């Protein structure tokens, strides 16, 4: 349909990754074994001081029934329906805030059924979401497949599977999901997926046109639908090389949903890419920002030669250190950005990129991978990204430029032989 060559998903190599990272983290752990809470000075705040800027129980936030769901779950943790409602609520908070602790809370709710194979569709789906939240994409996909087998009439099951197929570069799977959505839920619904497939496979202009038609659709008038449209329309603009339109789209949306983590992050990233560092500085505020946002702030402050850069960097380093002390194998994108774009350690960045690429292949991961390989003059290491680019036909201005440089390096290396 799109004139691209599709191929099936590659087999996961999670085990190898886990083993490799276990050793890496063990090294870090041994070096950091002297971590100390004592370095954090204790103090007595004024009673009026705000110590937490946003309570999870805030009724004005997106989930006004959260407290009730929490109470219900605590009183009946073995009731599957109650647990599912609570798990969904905390998972959605996790998505909105970009905070892994809420995925941990969702897992705690699902724990009594974590290994069950006889579950209703909604439970398989929820468990699959939590698994993919921690990069167990194989396990997550398996659960979501079961959910779809049991109940194919739920659009969100298909939507997540579509997203995970894209993340694993299973374009054939994503296309099949799109076609099923078109058949089961109608054209208006499937247009959104077609648009995503378009801009992820080298045709962002068609995607932009499709998104624009959805703006006036009655099915896309809710607050969350509008946010979603703004996010993807902006992304399609960015991919098509129209950063100003992307920025204006996202800025407009941020005025409507000022707490949206994903819109904040999209803006911060494109401002850094475009050298508009002062805009990022104006956005920076709370120290409780996500690691991803904090990383973008650091890059902007560094470019501005702002003395606050060091404090922000030490905050992120402290967070990365705490994460490494946990000795887990989860690779976070901010960690890769830190090594590649900030700490001048492309070797560490390349190692992480190689491992991360085995698990997920997203345009932003591709950019980091290419940058690290270029910095180390190891173009062969990023050959897999070039293959991915050819397979998907994906291109944005940043990737296009990196790909050209990498190909030049490859040619130089070959002629040197």
């Amino acid at each position: 349909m799109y004139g691209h060559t599709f191929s099936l998903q590659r087999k996961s190599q999670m085990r190898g990754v886990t083993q490799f990272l276990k050793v890496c983290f063990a090294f870090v752990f041994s070096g950091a074994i002297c971590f100390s809470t004592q370095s954090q000075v204790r103090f007595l705040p004024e009673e009026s001081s705000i110590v937490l800027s946003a309570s999870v129980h805030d009724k004005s936030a997106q989930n006004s029934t959260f407290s009730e769901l929490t109470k219900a779950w605590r009183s009946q943790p073995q009731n599957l329906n109650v647990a599912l409602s609570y798990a969904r609520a905390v998972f959605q908070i996790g998505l909105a805030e970009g905070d892994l602790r809420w995925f941990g809370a969702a897992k705690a709710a699902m724990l009594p059924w974590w290994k069950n194979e006889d579950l209703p569709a909604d439970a398989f789906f929820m468990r699959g979401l939590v698994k993919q939240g921690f990069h167990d994409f194989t396990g997550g996909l398996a659960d979501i497949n079961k959910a779809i087998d049991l109940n194919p009439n739920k659009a969100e099951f298909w939507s997540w599977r579509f997203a995970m197929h894209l993340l694993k570069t299973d374009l054939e799977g994503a296309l099949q999901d799109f076609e099923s959505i078109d058949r089961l839920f109608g054209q208006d619904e499937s247009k959104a997926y077609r648009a995503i497939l378009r801009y992820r496979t080298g045709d962002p202009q068609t995607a932009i046109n499709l998104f624009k038609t959805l703006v006036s659709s009655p099915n896309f008038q809710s607050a969350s639908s509008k946010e979603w449209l703004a996010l993807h329309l902006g992304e399609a603009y960015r991919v098509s090389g129209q950063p100003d339109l992307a920025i204006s789209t996202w800025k407009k949306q941020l005025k409507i949903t000022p707490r949206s983590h994903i819109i904040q992050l999209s803006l911060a990233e494109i401002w850094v890419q475009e050298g508009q560092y002062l805009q990022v500085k104006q956005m920076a505020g709370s120290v409780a920002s996500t690691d991803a946002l904090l990383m973008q702030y650091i890059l902007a402050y560094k470019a501005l030669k702002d003395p606050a850069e060091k404090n922000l960097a030490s905050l992120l380093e402290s967070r990365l250190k705490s994460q490494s002390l946990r000795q887990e194998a989860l690779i976070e994108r901010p960690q890769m950005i830190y090594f590649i774009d900030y700490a001048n350690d492309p070797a560490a960045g390349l190692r992480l990129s190689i491992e991360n690429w085995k698990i997920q292949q997203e345009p932003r991961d591709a950019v980091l991978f290419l940058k690290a390989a270029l910095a180390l003059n190891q173009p062969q290491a990023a050959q897999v990204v070039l293959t991915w680019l050819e397979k998907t036909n994906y291109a944005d201005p940043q990737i296009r430029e990196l790909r050209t440089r990498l190909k030049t390096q490859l040619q130089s290396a070959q002629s040197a032989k």
Partner: protein
Amino acid sequence: MLWPCVLLLIAIAIAIASGSAQAHSSSNSYITVSRFNEAAVLRADINLRDIDLVFDLDQNKDGKVSWGETLAKTAELKAWLEQGIQLSTTGQKCAQAQMNIKASDHADGTYLSVEWTVACLDVAGDELSGLALRYDLMFDQDNLHRALVKIDLPNFQSSAILSPDRPEFTLTKATGSGLKVLERYLLEGVWHIWIGIDHVLFLLSLLILAFLEPSRKSVTQWPAVQNVKTAVLDILAVVTAFTLAHSITLGLTIFKWLEPSADLIEPAIALSVVAAALNNLLGWAALRRWQLAFAFGLVHGFGFANVLVDLGLPSDQLAIALGGFNLGVELGQIAIVLAFLPLAWWLRNTLFYRWVVVVGGSLTIAILGIIWTVQRTVL
């Protein structure tokens, strides 16, 4: 149509545009047992976001939490904390007195910082073994929560990560003073060589020919060594070369001069097993066996280092731990040699030794080595 659409859109928005890779750090708490004046102090720093999840601290419902609102929950917090963080010695709960609540700023926000004076510990004493810390504050609420524990007493320094699967940390007898560190790592060294079947088989591959006189004929026709001194010297040369080599790379890795990836080292160790075994059968290596032991011993040293690092090294007693571990590996090797030597000496004149021990054993070891190489490379 609108309802599934909205959910679907939220899902894709995040999954496509941000991925889960952009997330915030997971939830940690920080637990320390340290000395203040002459008393032991237990300190727990817990993120207020976690506490808010459990207690709904926002009393005035303005969406924010003030310090006053936090303090309003002191009684409930005290009960929750003292039930969820418990020190004990030799099975007896320690009294945790004089709870003191403050705040502390960490990289990911403000934490509640609680301190207790612990009466059951003699902080300057030498006998703190049996000290156990149990932590299960947040695990039922957040399965990914972890407590990062540090014990920082004059004679005991250690650290641990507590999780739902491992909510308790016990200070073992060997943790702490220099002698105890030496004892602990020495035992770890012995244990590692004994359970490290690849190291053992590599060593045995190099030793089984020590009881036969080399000749130009096939190995099955080599005559037996008649002088025990010859065999012992041969064994001594192999063991010494292996020891020297792995000590070099173990030290280089621990002191961070060389840090090769385990992805390279583990297959290389397996290959060394294949090479040593095949050398017995084919005799193709230009190197003598003690030279092979040295060359491949360098690779095994990196493997030992990975194990040692995994054990967690006390940064202030690194040399003792390293020395202890190495000594343990040597003692483990000597034990293997002592067990093997008399048996091999007794059997050296038999066909059984040549065909079953040398040929059969080497073939089996080579096959095992090939399987490990494939496993460690591909899987």
